[in-house]
């Protein structure tokens, strides 16, 4: 991002930033097409594609039938022919129906054909809880995809990164999965005009601190930043790392921070067990940063249950600001 772009930055919502990224890409690269259920005339389940069909027409903003497997398969095939499809799932939960195309085809074709082809497909997944959409429409499945070599997985937490990571994904020769938290769609933030990218595989330090490194993803970045401000009032200075990319992980940023603070807390909305926090923790424990740890590592993740419909239980099923404050306080004060 250059200085001129910075000056021109204005505020957009997260959804608008994604739409603008797609607009920029559609306008500048005729290989780019949008695919997905109800993304055309209806504008998308969360109105992210909006009125792009009016500008680019139904040949490039394509409504697909109610079959995730079919739609994803066509998108993967289109990518193999040289197009740059952006495929939208209505809810990330429905990606379970398309796993064959994503895991067995998109992620492996380049490898199985000895590098003769690549699959430059971008898939967008509205994810996460908090909308009262219950167990089948509220999950955070990013770790499933991050477990598959051949896929890249990103989780933008700001409008700026939502646009920049989508444009970076389009430049990537391999399949990139973008997990967008549904509660972030209305969040506003500065977004530069025109084309820019946010590098895939690079975390961002959102707040510097010396007492604890908190690695967070997606919406949890904002909860952690809120908790960090409260903790600062108690004299605990947290360093907040927005992971941004789940695969490949930004090893260096995390390890350098842990070497500095000697404490690690991972906060993510997905179910805690066998999740991103486990990977980050193990990565630290296996590295030279291990020698710098001065307290047990803490993971805060989702409860071991489907996301409940009851609004209070839905809240209780994922980490909240208070949980983060309490966990960090206990860790820093040697009570763990």
């Amino acid at each position, binding site marked *: 991002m250059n200085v001129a772009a910075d000056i021109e930055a204005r505020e957009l919502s997260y959804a608008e930033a994604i739409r603008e990224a797609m607009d920029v890409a559609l306008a500048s690269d005729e290989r780019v097409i949008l695919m997905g259920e109800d993304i055309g005339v209806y504008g998308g389940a969360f109105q992210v594609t909006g009125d792009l069909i009016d500008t680019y027409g139904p040949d490039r903003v394509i409504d697909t039938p109610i079959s995730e497997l079919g739609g994803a398969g066509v998108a993967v095939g289109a990518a193999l022919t040289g197009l740059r499809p952006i495929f939208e799932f209505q809810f990330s939960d429905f990606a379970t129906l398309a796993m064959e195309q994503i895991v067995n085809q998109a992620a492996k074709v380049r490898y199985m054909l000895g590098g003769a082809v690549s699959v430059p497909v971008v898939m967008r997944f509205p994810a996460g809880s908090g909308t009262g959409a219950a167990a089948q429409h509220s999950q955070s499945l990013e770790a499933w995809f991050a477990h598959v070599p051949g896929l890249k997985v990103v989780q933008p937490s700001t409008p700026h990164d939502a646009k920049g990571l989508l444009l970076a994904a389009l430049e990537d020769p391999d399949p990139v999965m973008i997990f967008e938290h549904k509660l972030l769609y209305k969040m506003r933030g500065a977004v530069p005009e025109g084309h820019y990218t946010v590098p895939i595989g690079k975390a961002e330090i959102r707040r510097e601190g010396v007492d604890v490194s908190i690695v967070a993803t997606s919406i949890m970045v904002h909860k952690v930043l809120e908790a960090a401000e409260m903790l600062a009032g108690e004299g605990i200075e947290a360093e907040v790392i927005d992971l941004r990319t789940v695969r490949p992980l930004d090893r260096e940023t995390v390890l350098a921070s842990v070497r500095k603070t*000697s404490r690690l807390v991972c906060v993510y909305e997905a179910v805690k067990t066998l999740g991103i926090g486990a990977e980050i923790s193990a990565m630290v424990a296996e590295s030279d940063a*291990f*020698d*710098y*740890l*001065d*307290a047990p590592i803490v993971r805060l993740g989702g409860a071991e249950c489907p996301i409940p419909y009851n609004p209070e239980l839905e809240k209780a099923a994922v980490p909240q600001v208070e949980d983060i404050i309490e966990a960090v306080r206990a860790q820093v004060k*040697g*009570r*763990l």
Partner: protein
Amino acid sequence: MPKVDMDMTSGRIVSWHVAEGAEVTAGDPLFDIETDKAAMEVESPASGVLQHVRAAEGDDVTIGQPVGWIYAEDEDVGAVPDASRPEEGQATPSRPSEEVPRPRSPEETQKIRATPRARKLAREAGVALGDIEGSALRGRVQHADVAGVLDRVRADPVSGSLPVIRSGGDEGVPLVLIHGFASDASSWAGLLRFLPKDVPIYRMELPAHGKSPARPASSFQDLVRLVRQAFDLLDLKAAHLVGHSLGGALALALADTRPRQVSRLTLLSPAGLGPEINGKTIAGITRAKRAESLAPWLKTLVATPEIITDNYVQAAWSQRGAPGLRDAQRDLAAALFPDGTQSFDLRAALDRITVPARIIWGREDRIIPWRHALGAPGAVSLNLFERTGHLSHIERAEEVAVLIGQ
């Protein structure tokens, strides 16, 4: 730890004669020990440099266990040698058959709980984790626990330098503050509020005070030597010394021997400018065994007794509760102020001072008479405060801070 009598299983180190890092000659006294029955001096078994002292004064040590290592002059001093393996050529106990290591109890073999960072620091500093009390859950040793032990080792009762607390910023001539008898570095807190925030401030703490309550100091010369050593370690190009009472005398003595590093001098009710001193208050404070018996003596320090509140007395009392402090101060007082008289005279040193110097005194000082200031040479500024006692830096904190800043 040598076996010096038949029934001895361990000995307590009473005192070291040689400081860590100092040279020692074979046959010289190395340390004193005490057993159930006797106390005796242990001679150095070799000549060289004493290193890795692992038994502090007061520690009980099993016979045969190393208490320190003597290195030859040119020998490389590495990490602490493995203590479980007796060095060859070490003085053998008289009945070696009894010294076979006994089986370890479950407590001894239990793994120590410590964080990786604490282990790393302990490893690098060569200290044993087992000796360190952990402050985290289940007694886990954290980095801060090891660092705390290392800090105490650095302020070692035998060889270490005096504790110096640094605060303030990085701009301007540093202030070095030396407290008075029976006080400590915290007594400057009121004054600090009014001193400029950007100036570096170093608060020294004397032996038998503050962080080294039981550390003995036997004479004024002893104190001067330690203060000078601590000052030299700060490696300051220029410093403004501020001393109160005994600390004033020490500041003056320091300025006398470090004229190039001391650029200014402020003395608050300094000792050393005349023979009189209130021996009753000194005796009363050092003797007090309860807050109630301390309070009346504290009130003699100030012109307005109301400022010595119950809270102040409690705080002062809690600082005097450290083990060994009362005995150490009583001994020091006996050396410095025998029979209510100041045993050291720095009037000649004050005459030699060429840097700007200022004396500040309360006209109602009942500990050291302010008239001692009248013997100062004409170039020394004199500020006398009405309705002020011995603690002008507390009673007149803001005005004293302004004078220091001028």
